[in-house]
């Protein structure tokens, strides 16, 4: 067991080393002093209170979207719909706020969150139902549905939900104070982060300790065997797809309420797909998703700031993320193959 853990540590170490090396090469190619830029990236990610607040603000939607992808992933489903479910949750949550803007915060925030979760869940339910009853590939459906809800937000904020006083700016009215998620004063760390961490721990317990855990594991491992012993694959497909959707929906309304303060076209900077990759890297294990989402959140926040203050091109943030995911996926695979080679 000990040796097993050590080999994992070695893999993680080599992965980090490869990522840092590639990042240095990237900065060098940009014609910037590589080590200085790397140091700046780290400082912009975790260097002071403001940076940490930025990192955690980016971590929150990534963490929620990763959990949203991991939940159906436990059953072996590949859902790439967190982005669309995030937007669906934002729409449903905003609808709740627009319907009852005068409610006090203590009522409005739960109402808004619940509505967003239901909106996201409905958006996960549809591909779940199609998969369960008609055996239609959930990956394709979730992928194409992403575009629908993103464009639906556009239709709403350019159309019926547009703030008449905004003079052409496509957005809803600013959320009333009661609809803003409480945050740590002076920072962008909001209730959503607490919710996300609690969800990660709750899901970990659900997937490892509950009576449902073995059922999901059996169906994921061998559907035929599960059905032989009276488990209903279709039920679990729908349930887990909807649960994942609900989590992504919360990510959506959290961004709208706590970060943007109103519904407008660009809520998410690809958090859905980033979350999918985080979930995949963490093998759908909520407790591993926690640190991985934090790491990715740091890279996103750090490279955003780098782009502002160090005059690197705007694409750098995406390139750095890409390098991180590519090394994290490739290095363990390469090392495993090398080990098999040695064993021969």
């Amino acid at each position, binding site marked *: 067991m000990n040796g097993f853990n050590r080999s994992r540590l070695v893999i993680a170490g080599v992965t980090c080393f490869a990522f840092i090396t590639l990042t240095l090469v990237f900065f060098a190619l940009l014609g910037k002093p590589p080590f200085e830029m790397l140091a700046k990236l780290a400082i912009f990610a975790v260097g002071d209170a403001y940076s940490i607040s930025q990192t955690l603000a980016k971590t929150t939607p990534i963490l929620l979207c990763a959990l949203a992808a991991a939940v159906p992933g436990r059953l072996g489903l590949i859902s790439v719909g967190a982005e669309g479910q995030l937007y669906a949750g934002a729409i449903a949550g905003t609808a709740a706020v627009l319907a009852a803007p005068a409610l006090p915060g203590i009522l409005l925030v739960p109402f808004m969150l619940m509505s967003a979760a239901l909106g996201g869940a409905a958006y996960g339910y549809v591909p779940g139902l199609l998969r369960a009853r008609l055996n239609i590939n959930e990956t394709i459906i979730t992928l194409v549905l992403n575009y629908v809800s993103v464009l639906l937000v556009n239709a709403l904020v350019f159309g019926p939900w547009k703030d008449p006083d905004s003079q052409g700016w496509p957005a809803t009215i600013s959320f009333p104070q009661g609809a803003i998620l409480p945050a740590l004063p002076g920072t962008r760390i909001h209730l959503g982060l607490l919710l996300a961490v609690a969800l990660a721990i709750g899901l970990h317990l659900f997937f490892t300790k509950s*009576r449902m855990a073995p059922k999901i594991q*059996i169906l994921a491992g*061998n559907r035929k*065997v599960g*059905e032989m*012993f*009276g488990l209903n694959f*279709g039920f679990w497909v729908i349930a887990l797809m909807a649960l994942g959707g609900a989590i992504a929906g919360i990510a959506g309304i959290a961004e709208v309420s706590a970060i943007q303060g109103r519904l407008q076209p660009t809520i998410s900077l690809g958090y859905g797909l980033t979350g999918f990759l985080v979930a995949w890297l963490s093998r759908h294990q909520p407790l591993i998703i926690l640190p991985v989402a934090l790491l990715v959140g740091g890279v996103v926040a750090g490279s955003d700031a780098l782009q502002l203050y160090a005059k690197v091109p705007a694409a750098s943030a995406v390139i750095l993320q890409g390098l991180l995911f590519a090394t994290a996926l490739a290095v363990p695979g390469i090392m495993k193959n090398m080990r098999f080679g040695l064993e021969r």
Partner: protein
Amino acid sequence: MTAPIVQFDGVSRRFGELLAVDDANLEIYPGEVLAVLGENGAGKSTLMKMLYGIHPPSTGRILIDEKPSTIEGPADAMSNGIGMVFQHFSQLPALSVYDNLLLAWPQTPFWTGRRNPRIAPALQTLSRLAPEVNPRAKLAELSVGEQQLVELCKVLNISARIVIFDEPTSVLTPAEARSLHGFIRQLAEDGAAVILITHKLADVEACADRIAVMRRGGIVDISQRGDREMSEIVSLMMGKEVKRTLSAPKPLKRRVQQLFIDKVCAEAPGAALHDISLTIARGEVVGIAGVAGNGQTLLAEVVAGIHPVTSGDVVLDGGSIARFAENDTLATSLGYIPEQPRQNAVVDGMTLARNLNLRALAKGARSDEVNPEDLLRRFNVNPPEPDRLAGTLSGGNLQKLVSARELGSFRSGILACYPTMGLDLAAIEMVYGEIFAQAEAGAAVLWISEDLDDLLVAAHRIAVLREGRLVAIKTNDGTLSRDEIGALMTGLNTSEAAA
């Protein structure tokens, strides 16, 4: 005698803790058929995979033509004239026979149009070996026996001097096996060295010249055929004297009907069942005989409640156990041993203990239903480690694991599909013993088998399944013959056989 074409010189192979092959010394000569005989996991396949270059030996060396082997992989082995026919074929079922042959042939020209004269040699072997096979047919349309012949053609096309067969008859019907034995003899007479890995004595009796017996990784005996009695070879293989003591369970005194299959119709891609009716009493063993692919798999899945019926019903102990729609939730109360346990009966990523407790886990129970240690020991699952992942077990041991789960406690109905497939003799005895003990305790047993001899010895009645219909249900009163059942299975001379 001529010089050996292959020599194993003190060869060992270790996989982590496991010593799969232990100091093997063996010579193989051209023009002979050498049978390598042993139980599951005795190291037969590993030994030959070392020759084929899949695993290099841990210690010792392999000599080919009296020079140390430099083979580093299957491609290398093929160019050195070594071919291997695997237990699970490496073919592309969606392509035609012709494409499969050309893909595996090193001399295939760039242009493989039908008229290109340079592709003719690749097809000649096929027309010699199996003239009835249409090279334009998709491989998936061929029977398993024909697919194996295509696999053999691929090996012959590389003009192999050494041909290795890995358990070639385990998927074949008796007739297909007989013709394969003929091909194997022919190969040896043409001067090739043929190595036949098997655990079936019938293969050895039919075509081996020499017999090497392996047990627990070591070669324990090499003899010319005829030098030793078969019983002697069996005891060498098993390490202890084993008598084949298969006998039918005693029928119960009072006949109480227990398992009803009532006018069942069902459809699945490539198979259909028409109006199947069969009633099995307490303590009765009913065998289903039939050529593979006549609806056995579908029948099993319908009775086990996995595949929905289109009409009809299956009733056990007075309650329906059939599935009527794809989305029904249904836990079968049968003890069900499906074919191909790795695909159909276990969860690879779970431990042996959890696999034995799947029924309880699926119900959401907190505590274990059964004691895994006892079951693993009773059913001889090797290694008997409850915390090991099921995916790491060999095929034979998985089969034993499934038997342990399904037969470990009393069931009122049992459905066993090829329950001894891939098992060695000791394990076969054990599994049959457990099934028949259940029958004597009052279970109704439906037993789908391809082994007519076993069915004739141990089943109370034998039903014959052909093209999705039960064409006959015969009481096994001692007057039934192999030929009679065989005729019913193939549909030839039905009137004569039925008379």
